[in-house]
């Protein structure tokens, strides 16, 4: 039988509409959805051709329980009984990772389980590893941690400033929309990236700063705006605070000094600043509208030991230029996973309740009333700290849903040691990945194509996910597994069974909407009738919100936060490790590659880790394009294929963090953290690159991660 199911793409945070074509319950083709306002009929290679992971034979089909040191198949009842029994022992020494790939409903049920049944706020997800500094900075300065604009604003902007991200690889459909702006409307484009990304080809200004010097760069742009008198004085006076104190810090140095600090041309820096603050009107802009500028950034800003400072410096720029709260402008941290926004909205973060509501008595009381039991009021431990605190015994058991920290944490050898010290580890996922191999119990979860629910994309659009194929093996949706588990534990901790008796994702969504002000007006009926809706949507008759901050900021006035350039990074090159490693992604794989490695066509396209190196460095090291090379840091090593191009700066090496042929960049990266957000410094560490010699064969690969030596 042939069927078509309208759903939402499970890869990046763009959230494209997809139509799954199935024949006799097998996926045969993935079509675009012309009616979807986020993707407008576009898809990228992953969404179009990357879906076969769903029905891959490697999928976990039964629960696995460790017996005599081996993971062995078990029934659901046995597996869940064991998990229930053991987890009860670890209340107070427990942490949980939620999945930004799962649905909002899965996430909501998981945080409810952790808070209500496990009695802790130790729940977090991968946002800690990607945009926690952005969220941290936006909360302090504006009072909300979401993208302020919509993708349509990229097409309506007169200038786009794209910083520290490579949309062509990570958000390809956003890249298409940005190219459309430049091609069709003459929008100005400023690209800031240590690597010459594809989008730089269309850029009016391309700045290639030295790694880790972002604060200097943005302070330099601010200084240039002040020098030229291009700041938006009206906006500053009416909508912001802290301007004078901030200004005093920025004018400590001149544009030339700032430019020198980050190794860019001061004229280019001034030009970029001018374009951002006062771009010339794009073609077709109504005469009475002020030309707007959008600021979009990615992990190049956040994954530094001063990631939060970087984000502050950017947001200061937006406040200075008044590029917020109108069509065609705004600020966008581009989200990496399909549902990072939603997973945070649903409350899978340690420092606030669903909807970013604080642990204030009146707020907590509403949740306690709805859930009929007490919840903890202390902020929980953040993801990266949960891992580090396994060492101190503060965390002794973990429940990890849809995440693979042993590929995504920095300094994997170190993380692996810590995970082996856990007393009890439950992993719930699609595949037996590196972390699952260490687990005591592995629970098979359904993919997005086997369940109903919602994802929330980078532009805050809540969209439906619909079941297209039957569940693979005995796998079950995350929410169902967690409810089943919670029901086994609830009576023992004084929680009503009824709190985990949902019959459908729609019921879960309804509860979440009741408790979360920005989602209050959204329901499944409305999503099915009208398509995706952008929060805030406070009431059922509300159309959703295209851009935030039109009138005011959630915290009242926008706040300038003065920041100064700190040491560029925790680890800088020296004689032994003379090059700087920068990590990122490739178009054809998604993150660590747990999903995309299972799609043959994607593997045919990129099967080995590419190591991008500048021709000058390559020549000095005797490396030619296509050579096998070994990259080492103080923490580990990997083997990859050299790609020699001047797209990277001299002295730096770029390696995507996908794991191919046992090689992964995170064996090299540094577990040094940004203080306020606790994000690791993935973007800078010191390495050495050598051509692989024949006797290096034994070195191929990373440290062993699969062994378990408790």
């Amino acid at each position: 039988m042939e069927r078509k199911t309208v759903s939402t793409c499970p890869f990046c945070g763009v959230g494209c509409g997809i139509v799954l074509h199935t024949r006799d319950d097998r996926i045969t083709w993935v079509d675009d959805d012309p009616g979807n306002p986020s993707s407008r009929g576009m898809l990228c290679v992953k969404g179009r051709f990357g879906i076969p992971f769903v029905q891959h034979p490697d999928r976990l089909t039964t629960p696995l329980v460790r017996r005599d040191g081996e993971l062995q198949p078990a029934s659901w009842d046995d597996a869940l009984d064991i998990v229930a029994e053991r987890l009860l022992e670890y209340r107070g020494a427990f942490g949980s990772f939620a999945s930004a790939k799962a649905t909002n409903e899965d996430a909501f049920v998981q945080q409810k389980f952790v808070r209500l049944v496990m009695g802790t706020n130790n729940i977090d997800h991968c946002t800690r590893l990607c945009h926690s500094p952005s969220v941290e900075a936006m909360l302090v300065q504006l009072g909300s941690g979401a993208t302020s604009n919509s993708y349509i604003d990229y097409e309506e902007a007169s200038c786009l400033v794209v910083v520290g991200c490579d949309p062509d690889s990570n958000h390809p459909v956003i890249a298409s929309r940005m190219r459309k702006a430049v091609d069709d409307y003459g929008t100005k484009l400023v690209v800031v990236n240590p690597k010459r990304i594809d989008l730089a080809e269309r850029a009016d200004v391309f700045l290639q700063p030295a790694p880790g010097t972002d604060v200097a760069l943005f302070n330099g742009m601010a200084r240039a705006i002040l020098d030229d008198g291009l700041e938006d004085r009206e906006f500053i006076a009416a909508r912001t605070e802290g301007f004078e104190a901030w200004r005093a810090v920025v004018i400590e140095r001149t544009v030339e000094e700032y430019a020198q600090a980050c190794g860019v041309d001061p004229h280019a820096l001034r030009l970029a600043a001018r374009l951002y603050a006062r771009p010339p009107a794009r073609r077709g802009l109504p005469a009475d509208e002020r030309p707007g500028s959008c600021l979009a950034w990615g992990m190049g800003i956040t994954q530094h030991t001063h990631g939060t400072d970087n984000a502050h410096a950017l947001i200061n720029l937006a406040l200075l230029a008044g590029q917020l709260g109108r069509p065609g402008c705004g600020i966008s941290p581009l989200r990496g996973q399909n549902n990072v926004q939603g997973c945070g909205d649903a409350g899978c973060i340690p420092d606030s309740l669903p909807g970013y509501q604080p642990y204030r008595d009146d707020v907590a009381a509403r949740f306690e009333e709805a859930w009929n039991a007490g919840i903890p009021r202390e902020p929980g431990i953040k993801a990266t700290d949960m891992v580090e605190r396994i060492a101190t015994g503060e965390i002794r058991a973990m429940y990890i849903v849809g995440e693979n920290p042993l590929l995504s944490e920095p300094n994997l050898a170190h993380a692996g040691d810590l995970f082996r010290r856990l007393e009890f580890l439950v992993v719930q996922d699609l595949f037996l990945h590196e972390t699952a191999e260490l687990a005591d119990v592995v629970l098979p979860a359904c993919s997005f194509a086997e369940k109903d629910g919602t994802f929330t994309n980078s532009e805050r659009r809540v969209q439906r996910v619909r079941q297209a194929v039957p569940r693979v093996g005995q796998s079950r949706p995350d929410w169902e597994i967690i409810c089943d588990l919670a029901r086994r534990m609830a009576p023992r901790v004084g929680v009503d069974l009824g709190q985990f008796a949902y019959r459908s994702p729609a019921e879960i969504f309804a509860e979440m909407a009741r408790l979360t002000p920005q989602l209050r007006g959204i329901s499944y009926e409305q999503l099915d009738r009208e398509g995706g809706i952008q929060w805030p949507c406070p009431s059922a008759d509300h159309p959703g919100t295209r851009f935030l901050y039109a009138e005011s900021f959630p915290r009242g006035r926008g706040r300038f936060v003065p920041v100064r350039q700190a040491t560029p990074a925790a680890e800088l090159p020296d004689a032994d490790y003379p090059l700087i490693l920068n990590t990122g992604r490739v178009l054809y794989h998604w993150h660590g590659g747990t999903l995309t490695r299972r799609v043959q066509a994607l593997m045919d396209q990129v099967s080995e880790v590419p190591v991008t190196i500048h021709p000058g460095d390559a020549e000095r090291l005797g490396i030619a394009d296509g050579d096998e090379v070994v990259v080492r840091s103080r923490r580990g090593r990997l083997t990859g294929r050299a790609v020699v191009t001047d797209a990277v700066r001299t002295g730096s090496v770029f390696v995507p963090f996908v794991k191919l042929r046992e090689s992964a960049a995170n064996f090299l990266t540094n577990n040094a953290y940004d203080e306020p957000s606790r994000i690791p410094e993935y973007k800078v560490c010191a390495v050495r690159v050598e051509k692989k010699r024949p006797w290096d064969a034994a070195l191929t690969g990373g440290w062993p991660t699969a062994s378990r030596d408790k």
Partner: protein
Amino acid sequence: MKVDGRTAPETGSILDAVLALGIHLPHLCKDDNLPPIGACRTCLVEADGRVVAACHTPAAGVSEVLTASERVARLRREVLRLTSRMHGREPDVAGGPRSGEIWAAYEEHGLERPAFPRRIRDGTDATSPFFEFEEQACILCGRCVTACQQLQHIGAIGIAGTATSARVTPGAGATFASSICTACGSCVAACPTHALRPKPMSDPAQAGRSRRRGNGTEDR
């Protein structure tokens, strides 16, 4: 506005109105996602007595549309007959979702196909792991080029050459694999003839390629 005597909305193009009523009308160069190109002329209708291409004629201001009058049916049949001279045999593998459009149009207009088996352009390009291109099935409608250029703003492919040497290509001597193509698949989704078509999804459970059936167009 009336279409074949039935009331239709006057927003958008005549083609939108026709399709909204569920009336079959070929529209080989008009993609759902894209503005009309107006190249193929297979969507001809009679609008207030004039013969126009439905895809790029606005519905507003038109009072009566005929899709099946003897005159337009004959003209469309003629256009389709000329179109059928542009390609060779129908490939016997599954195409993309819109691939059936051309063969269905022949069927509806009572045409044997291909009317004039010919092949000057008959290259294939299977260098992309994701999709393949069989030139002899291409009608040069340009949908793929428009999808790549105007939807995705990539511009990896174009139509090079003129007359019988015209061809869709990622550049002289270039293959999809060696071009700037990002394998987004928009061109594949757009192609109405399965000249561009997905490689079968690497699905171990689905042995071999399925032959496409239906539209009375089994390979002979």
